[in-house]
């Protein structure tokens, strides 16, 4: 039996797809059979972030409608073993991801994979509800910014009421992933701190991903940023993967980098 993990946020543009791609890649690199699914019907992006956009033949909706088998639609990652991508459909209507169809696909995947990462669309509409419906765990991606935190709180409410687990009286394990964090702005009092966000949302912290230029350069070339091992964001995602697997690691990247003597001298 695998574990179904939804990556969700409510607000758009906070880093759901970036996080889904990197976490899935990180899990697969640790030898775990991992599938990452794009639930954003009509606006698929995961394929671009994973760099497999030209290899898409069939998609999620094709599988649900029986036009293709799951094996035909799953794209095997060329860089990392054990990693498969199921792209979203670009054209069909959103209701095409109906509950029974999604249930069947997830059931199939669940028997073969250790982790199934569901990349949720933004909003709280059908696609987002489908992405979370069957989840065992949820990663709530949040920016340290008022509208993102508020939307995350809404999403937590939905996770606790609209999912299969919630309806069965069970508890979805929730994780906070704080992205685009800028420790220097936090220190200046211009940005909500990780403690502030945790106090408001009151869920355990999976990781803090610092604001980083490497995220854009990675997406430019279609490489999940976790593969950029020298970058701070890549390392932060690696830490998050470890914590998702139960390891305990101290948080890095939450304090400003101390400037060296020379950069201070040169006014850097």
């Amino acid at each position, binding site marked *: 039996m695998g574990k179904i993990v939804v990556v969700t946020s409510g607000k758009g543009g906070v880093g759901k797809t970036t996080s889904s791609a990197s976490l899935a890649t990180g899990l697969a690199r640790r030898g775990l059979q991992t599938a990452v699914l794009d639930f954003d019907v009509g606006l698929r992006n995961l394929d671009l972030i994973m760099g497999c956009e030209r290899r898409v033949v069939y998609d999620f909706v094709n599988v649900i409608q029986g036009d293709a088998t799951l094996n035909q639609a799953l794209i095997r990652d060329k860089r990392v073993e054990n990693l498969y991508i199921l792209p979203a459909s670009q054209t069909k209507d959103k209701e095409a991801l109906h509950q029974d169809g999604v249930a069947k696909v997830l059931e199939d995947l669940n028997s073969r994979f250790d982790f199934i990462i569901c990349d949720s669309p933004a909003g709280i509409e059908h696609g987002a509800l489908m992405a979370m419906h069957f989840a065992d765990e949820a990663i709530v991606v949040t920016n340290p*910014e008022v509208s993102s935190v508020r939307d995350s*709180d*809404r999403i937590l*409410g939905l996770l606790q*009421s609209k999912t299969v687990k919630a309806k069965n009286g069970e508890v979805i394990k929730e994780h906070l992933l704080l992205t685009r964090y800028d420790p220097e702005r936090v220190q200046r009092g*211009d940005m*909500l*701190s990780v403690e*502030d966000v945790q106090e408001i949302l009151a869920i355990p912290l999976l990781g803090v991903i610092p604001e980083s230029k490497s995220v854009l350069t990675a997406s430019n070339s279609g490489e999940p940023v976790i593969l950029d091992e020298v970058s701070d964001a890549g390392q932060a995602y690696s830490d998050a993967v470890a914590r998702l697997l139960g390891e305990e690691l101290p948080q890095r990247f939450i304090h400003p980098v101390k400037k060296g003597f020379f950069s201070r001298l040169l006014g850097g």
Partner: protein
Amino acid sequence: MGIFSYFRSKKSTAQVAKNRLQIIVAHERAQNSGYDFLPRLRQEILLVVQKYVHVELEHINVDVNRDGDCEVLEFNVTLPDSKS
């Protein structure tokens, strides 16, 4: 928070953001407490109370409060000024 922020008279914007969030999130959690019948209940209470006293919907408050393991459904009806 360093020593400088201690001397700064104005609140930092992050602090303002946190305070605003705490208020709005508490408010919205109460609204989405899982009892979607609350708005209808409020309407019906209004109709009952209006048989006896003239009140408006805004004078009726329905809240679910949690006190430990215990949930309390609380009604508050503000009566109009009797002089007016």
